[in-house]
């Protein structure tokens, strides 16, 4: 379908359960807000529902792992090494004799926690920096853009390796906090860039000029007039970033510089199982599958939201 046809159907096409447009192509009587329109599109997108269902499942596993598996993931017994499925352990036991299914279910918590807090942190940093740089411009913008250049000049994983090593020296516990800090320091640049460009676009709109004319201060203009119009691409970037952060956490844990045992993380389990893959495949497959599905779910969710908010990108 060509873009023109697409535009025609999305604007004027008769939608189920709606008053058909009058002859002559006048627009439908009821108009929707941008968010309403986006929600309308999302509801009809099966990818959105699959992704949302997966996200709900993973979050549920993180909040209440007991719903899925009653076995204790840390109750390991080397006598059961590589033992096949039995009783509650439907996926058998791993190298250490731990319940594979239970460990996989409990592994969701670390991923979700890291992803969520890293996104919150990068969201706040990106929002503030992007907003300030976009709204005020000038030397502040130049400085922030250079800082972003430097941070983006280092491949994420290389920088994360150096940072994690540094933080590892003075940390205790499982390491969730330091992984979140690492991801926060390195991951905010994309969000800040997106925010900056949306703010730049929104700043020169007439309604902003009107608000300024009416005497609104910078803070009020930023909060009430620019932010709501710059939010959609920002949310999309953060949703996709959530998936990327979860993958990065798993990679860091895999490399032994992220979370550390006794923390239960898919990355740690994949690393351990990968070394013993000749003896048993299931301990590798189970966490791999869940990690992939989780990352995929957030990327698909972000894609679906972007398509809904930006009809131009639709195929």
């Amino acid at each position, binding site marked *: 379908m060509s873009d023109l046809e697409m535009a025609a159907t999305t604007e004027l096409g008769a939608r189920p359960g709606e008053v058909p447009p009058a002859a002559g192509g006048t627009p439908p009587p009821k108009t929707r807000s941008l968010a309403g329109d986006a929600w309308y599109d999302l509801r009809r997108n099966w990818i959105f529902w699959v992704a949302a269902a997966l996200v709900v499942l993973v979050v549920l596993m993180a909040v209440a792992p007991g719903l899925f598996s009653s076995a204790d993931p840390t109750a390991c017994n080397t006598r059961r090494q590589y033992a096949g499925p039995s009783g509650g352990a439907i996926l058998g036991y791993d190298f250490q004799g731990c319940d594979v299914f239970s460990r996989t279910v409990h592994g969701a918590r670390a991923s979700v926690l890291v992803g969520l807090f890293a996104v919150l942190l990068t969201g706040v940093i990106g929002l503030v920096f992007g907003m300030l740089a976009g709204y005020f411009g000038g030397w502040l913008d130049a400085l922030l853009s250079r800082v972003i*250049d430097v941070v983006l000049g280092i491949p994420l994983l290389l920088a994360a390796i150096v940072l994690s090593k540094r933080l590892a020296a003075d940390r205790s516990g499982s390491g969730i906090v330091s992984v979140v800090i690492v991801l926060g320091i390195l991951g905010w640049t994309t969000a800040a860039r997106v925010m900056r460009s949306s703010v730049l676009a929104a700043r020169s709109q007439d309604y902003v000029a009107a608000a300024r004319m009416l005497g609104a201060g910078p803070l009020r203009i930023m909060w009430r007039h620019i932010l709501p119009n710059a939010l959609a691409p920002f949310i999309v970037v953060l949703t996709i970033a959530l998936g990327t952060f979860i993958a990065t956490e798993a990679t860091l844990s895999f490399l032994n510089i992220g979370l550390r045992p006794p923390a239960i993380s898919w990355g740690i389990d994949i690393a351990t199982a990968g070394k013993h893959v000749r003896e048993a495949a299931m301990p*590798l497959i189970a966490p791999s599958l869940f990690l992939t599905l989780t990352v995929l779910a957030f990327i698909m969710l972000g894609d679906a939201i972007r398509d809904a908010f930006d009809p131009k990108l639709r195929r």
Partner: protein
Amino acid sequence: MARYIIRRLLQMVVTFIGTTFVVYALMFANQNDPLQALAGDRPVSDNVRQVLTEQYHLDDPFLVQYAYYMKGLLTGDLGRTLTGRPIGDVMADAWPNTIKLALLALFFAALFGIGAGLVAGLRRGTVFDNTTLALTLVVVGLPIIVLAPIAQLVFGVKLGWFPTTAGARPDLYGLILPALVLGAASTATILRLTRTSVAENVRADYVRTARAKGLAVRRVVSVHVLRNSLIPVITLIGVDLGNLMAGAIVTEGVFNIPGVGSKLLLGIQTEDGPLVVGFVSVLVIVFLVTNLLVDLLYAVLDPRIRYE
């Protein structure tokens, strides 16, 4: 063009200094007692301490230490690992393997990505198009720490098509599976980009003109469509290099290839600070220089782009 190159070089210098400064500050600043760390549990006599402090400039201010580090970095002297081997030597051993692996990965990524992307772009909406598109989505979401061990399990252990590990002196055959794994994400992104840009260019005026004057389809596709579609793909390969490096650390670790990535991984695991910093610094330089080269190549490939 010359002005553009100079400006880009100046920008690169700023980025480079910023990057190395951060890396250096994080790794070496505020260390408690590196000499004691070097000696382990044994006591360090005052004499030894004095000599080593002077040798490694530990009493100098931080900025002076950083200057010494930069001087070493730029003259190719990366110092020694904790085990006493010159880091430059370790790198010289490791680079050939990594370069072989990366080139092979890029080759596969370009071959499959551009090939399938071209077909998908020409036949949009067909079964082939939709299948490859769905596949690329899965591959993009597949972390390399999943892909590498699973590929090893399926094609190495279960099917036995490829060796499970590459060994100390990897031959080309042993590198095929790791290269496919390493190039998978790039393949997916290249495919998507080629597809979009081919689909756009097929509708361009010059393609219609070429068809109208009776050129063979093969010539229209290869000369008019493909050549113009490849320009954005080239940039992507430059940007992707960072991901390739990250992927190489995991892939080389899993398949036991003695390259830069696995040496870095070993350095991380044995807490070998100098080795990690040396390797990361060099990798960052490679990343920056490659991106500059790709940007310049962009201008050569597309004469419409003028850098001023």
